[in-house]
């Protein structure tokens, strides 16, 4: 029988707790959909409503010349949603788990990680919308699509780095989440989700180019919308951002995790 030992080190120490992550995610899912007859289907409602709203705004209020515009929009909105939901939740992941952290030792990094996995689990349902609608919205099947999981993994790693960073910082600065909420709102418009990057003027283009999410959106749009391979420069910049986010997140976590309990 496998029983946990105190001697396990490094990755093995986290791996031994994998069922804890699973149980935490299952708990959140159960609590969230308690008594809701439609259960999981509810997580389809929000992105669907958003897509309809943006479609209305961008086709009737602001005109766009992009062909298959809805597909372009759906790809952007869904991927941005993953970012915004994960980031908004991350702030309170450690502070919300204070009761656990003060009573028992387990690798602290698992708390924000379980939160991210929970967000991902809900998001997978939303991405089903895209998969079902893909051929009808004008999406093309090409070999490049096989690279999509890799692009998504890169994106998730980037988000994970930020989630770790924010969860630690929020312990020290409790009002961080208000700032983050505002930032998430602004970033939506600074990311090429509803518009094409090439239609921007030089000044606004500079700001938008500096947004790390822009590169990820470019990658998703080339793979899923244009049916081409993403440009090398996008991949390189996105990878650099991911590495930076991961370094910052794990560095902060390693430095702060031990003293965290006293600050909660």
């Amino acid at each position, binding site marked *: *029988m*496998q*029983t*946990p*030992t*105190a001697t396990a080190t490094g990755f093995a120490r986290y791996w*031994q*707790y*994998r*069922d*804890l992550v*699973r*149980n*935490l995610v*299952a*708990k959140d899912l*159960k*609590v969230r959909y*308690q008594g809701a007859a439609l259960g999981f289907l509810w997580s389809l409602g929000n992105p669907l409503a958003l897509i309809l709203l943006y479609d209305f705004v961008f086709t009737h209020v602001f005109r766009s010349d992009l062909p298959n515009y809805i597909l372009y929009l759906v790809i952007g909105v869904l991927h941005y949603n993953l970012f915004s939901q994960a980031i908004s939740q991350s702030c309170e992941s450690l502070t919300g788990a204070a*009761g*656990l*952290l*003060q*009573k*028992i*030792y*387990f690798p602290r990094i698992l708390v924000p990680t379980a939160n991210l996995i929970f967000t991902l689990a809900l998001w997978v349902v939303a991405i089903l919308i895209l998969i079902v609608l893909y051929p009808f919205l004008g999406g093309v099947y090409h070999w490049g699509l096989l690279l999509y999981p890799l692009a998504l993994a890169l994106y998730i790693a980037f988000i994970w780095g930020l989630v770790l960073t924010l969860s630690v910082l929020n312990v020290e*600065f*409790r*009002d*961080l989440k208000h*700032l983050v909420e505002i930032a998430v709102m602004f970033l939506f418009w600074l990311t090429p989700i509803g518009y094409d990057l090439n239609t921007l003027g030089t000044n606004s283009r500079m700001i938008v180019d500096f947004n790390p999410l822009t590169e990820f959106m470019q990658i998703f749009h080339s793979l899923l919308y244009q049916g081409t391979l993403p440009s090398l420069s996008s991949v390189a910049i996105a990878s650099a951002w991911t590495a930076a986010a991961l370094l910052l997140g794990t560095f902060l976590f390693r430095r702060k995790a*031990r*003293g965290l*309990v*006293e600050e909660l």
Partner: protein
Amino acid sequence: MPPAVLVEHVRKEFILRHNRAMGLKTRFLALFHKSKRERREHFLALDDVNLRVERGEALGLLGHNGSGKSTLLQIIAGILEPTRGRVTTHGRIAPLIQLGVGFHPELSGYENIFLNASLYGFRNRDTQKRVKGIIEFSELQHFIDTPLKNYSSGMQMRLGFSVAVHLQPDILLADEILAVGDQPFQEKCHERIAELRAQGMTLILVSHSTQQVQRFCDKFVRLEYGRLVETGDVKKNSPDATELSINEEG
């Protein structure tokens, strides 16, 4: 054979923050308002504490409120980091600082067993093997599929205790939690602890009751203001209850 728990020169300082700045806003305001500034004070909770607990031994940690005994327990459990010194442990530790850590009111008792056990590092399939024994011991068979929010506090504690003692820890760290449920259930808990001890489990029991320490422990240490002031053998030093309780008064 190395000792189960070795505490060497452990010192723990807490920073007491009066008027703690919890957010960016307060920090910004503090630049202009003196009254909003944070004042810090160091508080010495443990000072050069040394302990050695052999395998299979039971140690009672005595002391008044605020003497540092719970802090010491949290350091041994790995929840807090010592400011100086170090703690070495051998074997799997089950800290029972609170019963039913991580219990969620919306989940059923059954689901909570798995969640609670996984916090102690247990795989679900290993919990599965023990779940029958856990439910039986807690005497909650009829309620196990009911959400925990419908449990009385006594029932919740029974379930929490039952999980903890069925995980077969090598070292059990208990913070005044041996008074669970009604009299018959308490007896059962005490029997179970004795049974685990007979199997070689190490026990560290925090208490301010000398009776409890006498009942469960071979040795005791007494903390006062973060220092170890007395170490002794329960049997040698106090053949009967009175002698130890005289010590307590002093």
